[in-house]
């Protein structure tokens, strides 16, 4: 947290500091090291893996307005080109570190895209990569993660650590299946999911805000509690009466006119279900509200310095309750995606720990809704990538493909994100004295 760590070098201007000149640039060799390691990794893979031939990228999907041609690239040439660009990026990162310059945001992004293309081309040699399928599948896998991450960001910005995201997703999935089956409407299911997510948030609030219990404890325990309750109810009630209680109607995809007809992008983003469109709205509204409205300022104030917020008349406890209720409802809606879109019907522990990945996305995204969304999309892409590659058949044993997203995350967190710093008062209950 402090800049006195022996890790990053700190540049402090020699001349007397005026108000304008008080700019401290923190630079660190981490980025260059990590980029170098990744370049080396791909280089070794290309050298030892002996892949050759061509890789085809299919850009078109069904129902396109006009069909895009397939793009075929030679494996060796593309891999070498990618390696050269990656090496250049690494060199640039190194130069900036030596020159005490800040690393621009575009550098890791360019690196990531190029590295991904190079790797994909190499791994899928001789096959065809369905680009649209790959990307739209990524969006589908990322939807619950993004909802969960949004809920997490909101809660933590208000000073409440929300480890219970997984519980909220699971509760949402359960409630969506149950209510949608009983009422026979997907809208009821979505509403039920939001209520269930908010209910978990209420328990979190009662213990963490009103009774000052450590928020991490409450969160972890709530996850276990929700797993227990939903699995118990599933075996006792849902499974024996599956037709009446666990067969929700399926939410179908809606194509947005005009936008849905754009090649590639349209198929990926605008031929989705209502939940996904609600997701776009949620990300935009949460981001705008958090940074541009009076409400958002209050939420952030309560999370950074509750005492100061209280002093100027903001009701800290009420603000925290309201925010985590909203956050819980958002995360719960994400859970509905499991039972209304991905699979029809609830099954025990069906989130498979996605809430923890969403939590990772919150921290990875540095508590910012947009960045957390991007991080969640990255996780979705990575977990879809291994599925696609296992169909095409790649030279790497499937277990290594499966672990790739997680390894890359560790590298990214260690090398690019570094010391992530949350809201100052996160995790501390507020006691009015």
């Amino acid at each position, binding site marked *: 947290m402090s800049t006195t760590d022996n890790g990053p070098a700190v540049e402090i201007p020699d001349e007397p500091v005026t108000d304008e000149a008080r700019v401290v640039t923190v630079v660190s060799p981490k980025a260059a090291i990590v980029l170098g390691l990744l370049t080396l990794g791909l280089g070794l893979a290309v050298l030892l893996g002996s892949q050759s031939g061509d890789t085809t990228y299919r850009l078109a999907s069904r129902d396109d307005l006009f069909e895009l041609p397939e793009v075929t690239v030679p494996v060796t040439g593309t891999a070498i080109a990618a390696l050269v660009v990656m090496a250049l990026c690494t060199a640039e990162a190194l130069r900036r570190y030596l020159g005490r310059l800040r690393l621009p945001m575009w550098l890791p992004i360019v690196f990531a895209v190029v590295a991904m293309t190079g790797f994909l081309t190499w791994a899928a040699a001789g096959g065809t990569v369905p680009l649209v399928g790959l990307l739209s599948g990524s969006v589908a896998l990322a939807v619950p993660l993004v909802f969960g991450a949004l809920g997490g960001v909101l809660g933590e910005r208000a000073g409440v650590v929300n480890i219970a995201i997984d519980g909220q997703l699971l509760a949402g999935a359960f409630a969506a299946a149950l209510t949608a089956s009983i009422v026979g409407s997907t809208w009821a299911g979505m509403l039920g999911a939001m209520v269930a997510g908010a209910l978990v948030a209420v328990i979190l609030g009662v213990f963490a805000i009103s009774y000052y*219990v450590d928020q991490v404890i409450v969160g972890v325990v709530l996850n276990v509690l929700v797993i227990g309750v939903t699995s118990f109810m599933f075996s006792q009630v849902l499974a024996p009466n599956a037709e009446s209680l666990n067969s929700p109607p399926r939410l179908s995809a809606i194509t947005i006119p005009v936008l849905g007809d754009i090649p590639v992008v349209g198929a990926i983003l605008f031929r989705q279900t209502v939940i996904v469109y609600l997701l776009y709205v949620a990300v935009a509204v949460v981001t705008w509200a958090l940074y541009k409205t009076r409400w958002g300022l209050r939420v952030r104030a309560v999370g950074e310095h509750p005492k100061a917020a209280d002093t100027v008349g903001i009701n800290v406890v009420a603000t925290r309750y309201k925010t985590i209720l909203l956050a819980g409802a958002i995360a719960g809606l994400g859970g509905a995606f499991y039972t209304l879109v991905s699979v029809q019907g609830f099954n025990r522990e069906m989130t498979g720990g996605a809430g923890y990945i969403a939590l990772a996305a919150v921290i990875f995204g540095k508590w910012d809704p947009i960045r957390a969304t991007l991080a969640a999309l990255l996780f979705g892409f990575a977990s879809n990538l291994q599925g696609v590659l296992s169909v095409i058949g790649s030279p790497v044993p499937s277990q290594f493909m499966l672990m790739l997203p997680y390894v890359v995350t560790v590298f990214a967190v260690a090398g690019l994100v570094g010391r992530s710093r949350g809201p100052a008062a996160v995790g501390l209950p507020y006691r009015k004295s």
Partner: protein
Amino acid sequence: MSDERPDLAKASTGPADDDGSAEPQATPPVDVDEVRRPESPPWHLVVRSITSGNAVVAVLSVVLALIVGSLMIMFTDESVRDSASYITARPQDFFSASWDAISGAYTALFRGSIYNNLSPTSEGRIRPLTETLKFSGPLIMAGLGVGLAFRAGLFNIGGRGQMLLGGAAAGWVALNVDVSGPLLLVLSVLAGMLGAGLWAGIAGLLKARTGAHEVIVTIMLNYVGFYLVFYALSKQGILQQPGSVNPKSLPMPEDAVLPRLLGDQFSLHLGFVLALVAVAVVWWVLNRSALGYRFRAVGENPHAARTAGIDVGRMYVVVMLMAGGLVGLAASNQVLGTVPDGVTTGLDAGIGFDAITVALLGRSHPLGILGAGLLFGAFKAGGFSMQAAEGIPVDIVLVIQSLIVLFIAAPPLVRALFRLPAKEAM
């Protein structure tokens, strides 16, 4: 906890070390406000409120959790629901059906975990207790691993990955090292601790060197570890049983299996004794050693600890190595004791995550973790027999366990629910 504060005071007012290394100085130039912020961690307050005569709350928490569990059993029981439909006509049916459902469940839980009065033989009657101890062992060891990291301010969610790596390492040594006799067992257990310790150490090292958040890293390492062990188990020449296609290793050799404690009719093995030893060692490290003092100082306030001359980064690495080692002990317990018929990716059996709840219930104190591990072990042993005898899903145990942890952490809530007088000045 009561012995902690004098301990802290003693150490910080003791004579300064001549070499001036990592020992805290006599009067650390630390802003008092920073060390003891008025609104700083509720942890101590919570801990103090439990240890200072809050046994009533602990008992009531268990009662409350059992009541909630009863309600869930009641409302999902078939005959209770049937009788509820004519409750106004014959309420006694409803109440007797409810009583049957609830008492049946808890009697089965008791018979499965403590004492089975229905068994004809005396071995059969005390077998449930030995089963409880068998299930407690790994929970205590892994719980210590999570708890120790907690005391240094690190949240180790990586129990699953550490269990897998430790189990695979222990299994590999047991199958491949050409030693016979008890030495093989010792080497295998040590390998399990080393494997898990190094895996956890990655998270500590990354936290120390780059500031990477240990929560993310340990979560990610769970997945990486799973696939790594999965690969090793499905590759001939590493761990996979020769000639097999299943991701499973050969059974452990006789010499590497933890010996049974009470003869062959009980499955309780030496692992439980190892758990007790681990409790004693961790207690000593935390409360009596300079290293434990540094762990706690870093956990209380890393800035103050750094100012006092403690190498915070090194402490992160060391504590994660030790925490992983403890989880690895639990993994060895599984691979070499409880399930010695071969390493699989299921060797974790949920212990890595249960350990978090155990550590939380035990307040990260070795003795508390011992108690929590015994309680959860009893639930685990009893839950299975409850499912078998009464057809009640074992998941109800998760509900009861998590409610106990929640209620014990919020004494004022429990007091309010039972209308007990609020506790006077703590």
